[in-house]
């Protein structure tokens, strides 16, 4: 892209956590920048900005997306869910609850991404296998937990959600 087109600003309208938001931003602004800097949704973390760590994962129409590799403008018309959009009032999403109860987090920096990965999985697969759980978090790096308690948290959330049905 030449300099002029990278500096071009435009109105980007997104659906984020059920709300329509509109900002006048550079066309090259990434989704993570839009969420963090324009909307103040700092629950989405920036760990590498090049798609390696997965900490910036959000859901677009229910599927995990690395928001650092995505341009905000490309997500017009799609429903974005960030970690801030999961809990219903004071009631945590079952996946969030399970991460709290099972200690599926330590420093917490990858946690929003891990939780969203799991939410996406459980929406498609109510009774995931151990392999599917590993796969669903394998795009996100955690340096604290060794993943064990994250996997246990997801399995617990799946059990609890099935129990509620």
């Amino acid at each position, binding site marked *: 892209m030449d300099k002029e087109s990278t500096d071009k600003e435009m109105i980007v309208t997104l659906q984020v956590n059920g709300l329509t938001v509109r900002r006048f931003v550079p066309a090259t602004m990434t989704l993570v920048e839009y969420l963090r800097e324009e909307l103040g949704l*700092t629950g989405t973390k920036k*760990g*590498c900005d090049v798609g390696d760590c997965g900490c910036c994962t959000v859901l677009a129409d229910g599927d995990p997306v690395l928001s650092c590799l995505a341009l905000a403008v490309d997500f017009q018309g799609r429903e974005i869910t960030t970690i801030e959009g999961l809990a219903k009032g004071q009631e945590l999403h079952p996946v969030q609850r399970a*991460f709290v109860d099972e200690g599926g987090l330590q420093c917490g920096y990858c946690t*929003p991404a891990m939780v969203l990965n799991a939410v996406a999985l459980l929406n498609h697969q109510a009774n995931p296998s151990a392999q599917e759980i590993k796969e669903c978090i394998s795009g996100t790096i955690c340096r604290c937990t060794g993943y064990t308690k994250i996997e246990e948290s997801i399995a617990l959330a799946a059990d609890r959600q099935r129990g509620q049905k």
Partner: protein
Amino acid sequence: MSYRIVGKKTPYVDAVDKVTGRAKYTDDLRLHHPLRVKIVRSPYANARIVGIDLSAARAVEGVVDFVVGADFRHTFGVLPISKDEPAMAKERVRYVGEPVVAIIAESERAAVQASRLVRVNYEVLKPHLDPQKSLNESTDLIHPELGKKNNLHKSVNQSFGDVVAGLRSADVVVEHQFEFESVTHAFTEPHATQVEWEGENLTVYSATQVPHYLHRALAEVLELPMHRLRVVKPHLGGGFGGKSDPFPHEMIAVKAALKTGRNIRLAFEREEVFYSHHGRHPTKISMKLGVSRDAGIQALDGYMLIDGGAYGSFGVVTTYYNGVLLQGPYNVPNINFHCDRVYTNKPMCGAMRGHGGVNPRFASEVLFDEACVRLKIDPCEMRLKHFHQPNSKTINEFRITSVGIHHGLRNAMAASGWSQKYQKLPFGKGIGVACGFFISGSALPIHWNEMPQSTVRLGIDYDGGVSLYSGASDIGQGSNTMLAQMAAEVLGLPMTMIKVLAADTRHCPIDYGSYSSRVTFMAGNAARNAAIRMRRQLLEAACQLLECEAPIPTPPGEPENFFRQGGRPPDYGALYLGANPNYEDGYLFVDEKIVAPDGREVKYLDAVRKALDFQGALQSKGGYVSPKMGGSFKGAGAGLSPSYSYTAFISEVTVDPATGFVKVDRVTCAHDYGQALNPLAVEGQLQGSIHMGLGQALMEGMRYDDGAVQNASLLEYKIPSPFEMPEVVIVPGSGDECEGPFGAKEVGEGALAPFIPSVANAIYDAVGVRLYSVPLTPDKVLEALRQHAGGAHAP
């Protein structure tokens, strides 16, 4: 004794904030109208700065000012004995990635654009990259200003017993050279710092493990009185030792605030995290072990050459820890070690989980395994006979208190099916053992002082909520949860009533931060002390309401109980009741009630308000002071700790002889952490240690070319994914540590080191080859198999 909260699976106090995205990390803070800072770094490993041309960068719209080396008069370093690092390079650069110019701009875009227009004219010099060559270099030194005759930073040599005689008396002598690549912390949150003006003062929010060290270093380098600076650690996205130094970017951010009068925001890109590094030293070890059939290790002789990179960091401590942590977990009557830390033109190394003890542990455990094989003795049985005994002393005068590893290793043997598997598995499958030992905090402080190692303050006001102030940093290990547990247990309150306010130099008592596995033992003890003092005040108020005599508190006991070998006078009376002090007073503090021995009850809140009638504000404080310990020889303080953890690992692996690929299938771990205060956190620390150890064992390494890091991304510096993680079985291996708070000791670091040699020993059991170079990558396995071909165990 059983407790309501301690010892129970307790969710982290900040877990809800973390799963909802509410938890604010440093770069999540939104200060008023901040300027952004971008650092231009050296592309050369060794060069003189001839000139800096900022004219083109200055012309970029939005650029406000610059920070350069000339803005700073003082160098710094985390250790007062090793202040060799400038906040920014002045006349010369010493590693690729060293900060040279910082741009202060109205937007990140402007700062980035300007950073490309900064012109630095360098006179490039030949870099010193090989530690051995650098050690022998006598001209063009990396730090000529230090007045040394070569690039040696620190050398430590300690000798106990008679190594020559020990080797002579041994039934077998094994020796080898070992080599280790550098590994880095790879925490997920990149370094970040923000600076906020408050009147004439500055608040520095930074991703740091030790607000106090940063506070000191900033005051010195920026030449400001400490009271004008406040350092706050927001939520921290992982440290592992890599955020325990004060850093150049923190000084740059404060200088930028001073120059512009504006708030400042600075965050690293991931690549910069790799340049900043401070990870585990690349290491070469030459070690010799004399082992006797009946008496175990008779002699250990080791030379460690550690590649420090461009500056000191924690390196003096690392140099000591390379040797002094070899004194366990076995009784070794004769030991000699020599460790050299040498400067090279690479990103500096420093403290990383298992600090200094990891690589030598690999060498000694692999050699011990080899000796057992040659002596035809089961390596578990051999180890079991020669572990430290409780309440004993090592040859270098470490005071040993509790030791749980004997039954820990037995449990691990039983759970792994050791005796059915060792030397009995089919080719390609193997099982291996290794053990280790680590400190629960250093007894001696970095900055010599007479203060308690840790102090905690409690406050209760009209609403009855307890505020717990501690300088310790929760870096994800759960220290805030641990501190809240202490107060909740002693005061009979739910966890939700304890609010921990930590890691803020304005509001919290001084604390040496989170490293060296010191927080649970030291800050935990301080919190227990403070909570007991608060309990006494509430008990007095409750007794007034019950119209009875308050029990006379148990006296703290005779000073010699805490200061076993004499030492400094215990004038901490108001602060210190001893390590893990008793608080049995006949009353029961439970469910927000105080229950008298006769069954009458006072509500907690009524007791609080009665106490407030007399005092207005309820306050208490508590400290931890370690006993006087150790020998009087030079360097006797290194590695001294009030308590040590022990670990036994049995690992099972599959080795593919066609590809050299190693898969760790199952790990059985017994770690002597004393009592588990929070099983969730204990398991999490052990699983995390195994993960980080697995990375170093099989895949991680900083790769350099001409001093430049070649794999400065989380794609190329690959850490283990969920698929590489083995099944982890944690078995009991601990007892009660009488001086630890509620019986606890270290769990966060010690388990990492012995895991790595347990994998190497399992590889030997699987395919009959020994690997002496870490990481144990497939190419090395294949090469070893090729060399071994024709041997008894080969396919």
